[in-house]
């Protein structure tokens, strides 16, 4: 079983290397994170906070946008694309179960994403440390950022598989993936913000808003990372948010994990119903 899952995963990684997907994802993450680290933190020099930590705060915001996008683009083709090309028929006529097939895809894509994050963000961390701008003390923050980014990526990979199992054409799946990204990453936040601004002291702001943040994996990810940084009062746009929450910020991590698990289970359920 494990060898079959690994065979599928290795195939995904190999294809990712060949069509330069891995290179592109790594490059995007590296360029944006370097730009944020070198330009964005310039005015923070007087705050007395480690630069690496400040950078982690900006990178958390970067991850919220880029990681879901990369994950959805990796995943949308996974099932409907293979149906379209006829390879799913051939693969599933081999002695491999559909769950194993999906697990292999997920493992391969997660490793691709992890590689891009480690190298892309790692370059930035290495640069800051060698420049003497950051200390090794900030490294745990960095590791936490990468680990939670991977978890965020898995959530959106799973959403991508669900979309891929529900649509018949890769083009439709791609359009749906972009729509999901727009809604969950951009519009969801805007809607929450709008509701908050409209009535800052109502029941929504105090009772519903924190849980609405928890429900969306992208927001849960940002909440957890900013709250975990001791310096969130200084650097975060959501200043002091962790103090006003009705729950422990660790719940955001739990919510993110539960979301990823549920979405993966849903995609595993959907792939069983497919006729390749």
């Amino acid at each position, binding site marked *: 079983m494990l060898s079959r899952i690994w065979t599928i995963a290795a195939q995904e990684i190999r294809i990712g290397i060949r069509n330069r997907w891995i290179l592109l994802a790594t490059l995007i993450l590296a360029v944006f994170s370097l730009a944020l680290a070198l330009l964005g933190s310039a005015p923070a020099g007087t705050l007395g906070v480690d630069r690496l930590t400040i950078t982690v705060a900006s990178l958390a915001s970067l991850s919220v946008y880029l990681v879901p996008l990369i994950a959805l683009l990796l995943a949308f083709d996974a099932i409907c694309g293979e149906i379209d090309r006829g390879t799913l028929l*051939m*693969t599933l006529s081999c002695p491999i179960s559909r769950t194993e097939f999906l697990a292999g895809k997920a493992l391969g894509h997660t490793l691709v994403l992890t590689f891009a994050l480690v190298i892309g963000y790692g370059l930035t961390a290495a640069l800051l440390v060698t420049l003497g701008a950051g200390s090794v003390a900030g490294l745990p923050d960095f590791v936490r950022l990468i680990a939670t980014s991977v978890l965020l990526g898995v959530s959106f990979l799973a959403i991508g598989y669900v979309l891929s199992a529900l649509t018949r054409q890769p083009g439709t799946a791609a359009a749906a993936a972009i729509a999901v990204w727009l809604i969950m990453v951009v519009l969801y936040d805007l809607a929450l913000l709008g509701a908050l601004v409209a009535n800052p002291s109502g029941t929504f702001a105090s009772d519903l808003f924190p849980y609405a943040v928890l429900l969306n994996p992208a927001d849960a990810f940002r909440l957890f990372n900013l709250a975990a940084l001791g310096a969130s009062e200084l650097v975060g746009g959501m200043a002091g948010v962790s103090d006003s929450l009705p729950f422990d910020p660790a719940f955001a991590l739990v919510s993110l994990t539960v979301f990823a698990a549920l979405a993966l289970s849903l995609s595993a359920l959907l792939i069983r119903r497919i006729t390749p």
Partner: protein
Amino acid sequence: MTNSNLSVQSVSKRFSAQKAVDDVSFSLEPGERVALLGHNGAGKTTLFKIILGFLKRDGGAISVLGAAPGSSPARNATAYLPEAVAFPPSLTGKEVLSFYARLKGQKPAKALPLLDKVGLSEAAGRRVGTYSKGMRQRLGLAQALVGRPRLVLLDEPTTGLDPISRQTVYELIGEIADQGATVLLSSHALTELEARTDRILIMSKGRLVADDALSSLREQAGLPIRMKIRTRPGAVQEVAAQLGGGRMNGRSVEFDCGLDDKIKALTAISALGSLVEDVDVHAPSLDDVYRHFSKTVQKEA
């Protein structure tokens, strides 16, 4: 029946309004090469998908080497090549074959000699995206041969191939059958199947309308032999009169005769002596036989 590699009994499948497979029964023995013929939409691919366990049948029973379709013993012993597969273009032929070998639980090193067998050893290190259609089809065939399957299902393996590639495909099919595997291939290129298959199944509108060796099907169809006699200039009327009719067409006389009357007709023609310049004897081809069996169903329907 117990030693059949594939047994299909009264299998039916209905898609909303249309019967895709309608009460189909047959069984295939080890070492048989069987062609499944039918026009587009006759239900060939649907039948394959039912045998592989991808589609649920509405009724009937199927046994693949004694196991249920889609079960792991069935899948372990079955190989399938779908119609029109697009392998990942950025991978090499060797990588694609290794991938499928691993999925089938075989060591890639043991599967790679198959590339020699299908004539792809030189192209093994090249990307599949650079392959011609024939090369991709041969790669698919190599994939189907990994691990010595006992039942090989090939969906239109020769469609779009040039005559030489087709011949290679049929040679390979012969080799697989010689090793004791059953090969079931679908096709609508009929004439090339003569002498290359042991048995022919014909499907039309979801029903199995014929199941026999080609020569027996010819007999059953009872199609006439067409004779075309080219006469000396001006002798058309005379020849037609002597042979008792037939259609006149310029300098030629054409008529149909039954299989039993073939020699008699030829004797009569040779008796005409110098009135005749040339004779064409056109035996019914597989195309004609196929058309005969598909038509009978359409008339009934």
